[in-house]
């Protein structure tokens, strides 16, 4: 091997060691800058995806209309398509109105945000939203919808931030079960089932707790904690006992794969 190659190899490895020795806060600020650089590409990608998605929906609707209404002429097809589009707008309008009503009646100060990218990694569950420190976002702020809890912010860039979802194993939430005094820690699974909304595990419950499927799980709101009390997390699917404690499997309240509008809790009203 040539001497120059060995020198270059050592230089690259030295750089790798230098970066790995950086503190978590330095690494996080580096990631925040990278996120800001990446944001225009991600936003463009999301816009293209949305365009393609809506195109697919339109074509599917037209196919169905064609199958059901062979005798309809071109004008009728056009009218049906317009009608479908209006229905979509009406549905979106209703959804946004619900979100606005939730924002108005919520006891928290909420900042609306939009999902600009979903997780693309095999092992982590995260999303990126279009709000950053310029909008007043800080690390470890709860993110939710009018239905329930989604996760919390981690790395915050200028106009974007990363949200770790409750379906991720590293996102731990102190929680309580409706109608009982049971409290535990809710977190995601390392390997989430595919084709589902994800599953949460609620650990450290007492072994002889009386917990039934269908009971609702809310944030417990411990002092100095990230999550305020009373936010819906999900519904108990199953309760099982283990040698040392009880564990409940919980279905998340929010279907994160379908969620595009969220709120960040930036304080109390």
């Amino acid at each position: 091997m040539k001497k120059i190659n060995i020198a270059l190899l050592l230089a690259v490895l030295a750089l790798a060691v230098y970066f790995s020795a950086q503190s978590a806060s330095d690494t996080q600020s580096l990631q925040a800058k990278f996120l800001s650089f990446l944001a225009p590409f991600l936003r463009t990608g999301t816009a293209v995806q949305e365009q393609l998605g809506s195109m697919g929906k339109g074509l599917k609707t037209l196919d169905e209309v064609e199958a059901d209404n062979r005798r309809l002429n071109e004008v009728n097809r056009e009218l049906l398509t317009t009608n479908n589009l209006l229905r979509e707008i009406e549905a979106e309008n209703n959804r946004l109105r619900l979100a606005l009503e939730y924002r108005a009646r919520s006891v928290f100060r909420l900042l609306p945000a939009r999902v600009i990218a979903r997780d693309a990694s095999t092992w982590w569950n995260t999303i990126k939203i279009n709000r950053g420190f310029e909008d007043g976002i800080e690390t470890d702020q709860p993110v939710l919808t009018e239905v329930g809890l989604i996760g919390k912010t981690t790395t915050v860039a200028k106009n974007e931030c990363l949200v770790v979802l409750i379906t991720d194993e590293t996102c731990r939430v102190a929680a309580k079960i409706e109608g009982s005094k049971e409290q535990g820690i809710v977190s995601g699974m390392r390997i989430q089932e595919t084709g589902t909304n994800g599953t949460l595990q609620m650990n450290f419950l007492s072994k002889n707790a009386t917990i039934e499927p269908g009971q609702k799980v809310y944030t417990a709101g411990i002092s100095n904690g990230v999550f305020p009390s009373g936010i819906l997390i999900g519904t108990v699917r199953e309760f099982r006992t283990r040698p040392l404690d009880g564990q409940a499997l919980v279905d998340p309240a929010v279907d994160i794969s379908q969620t595009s509008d969220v709120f960040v809790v930036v304080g109390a009203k």
Partner: protein
Amino acid sequence: MRTAIGMLATCLGVFIAFLLQQGLPAVHVLHGARIVLVPMIFCYAAMVLPFPAMLGLAFFTGFVSDLFYLHIMEGRVEIAIGCSIVFFVITGSISNGFRPSYLKGHWWPVIPVAILTTSAYLLMQFVMISVRREGFVFEMAVLWRVLAPGLLVGLFVPLVHAVVQPFASLIPQSPWRQPEY
């Protein structure tokens, strides 16, 4: 100069592969395995480029990869920046070992190297997070999510080769251009 242009073009290709990956959904029938394009593009480039350029590319790919998948919770970094750089230096060196074969017109060794690199990359991530979280989880889904992306990229390599070669032949003395025998 041509190597520098080749390397810059490859860095751009790797970055585009990262963005494409971002938009690709998980494959439910493969237990949530994802299509991971970056190690494949890197392996192909590592076989084509000279060793110093490969090192530069390994640094770029590893650095961007670590920034893309950096996961910090409660002040703990799960996979520190730099780990992927070392990984890509190792796998890039293996791939670069097949360069003489590539220059003789044999491009196919990149297929097994890309399969192994892709699966090893995902396995490295899984092992590192398992060590960090102080517990291993053994499920069939883990095997699927590690092995399936590797096998999938094995199918994509001939496609990438078929796409790259016509473009490479347009550039005189391009490092990507294979001699015709």
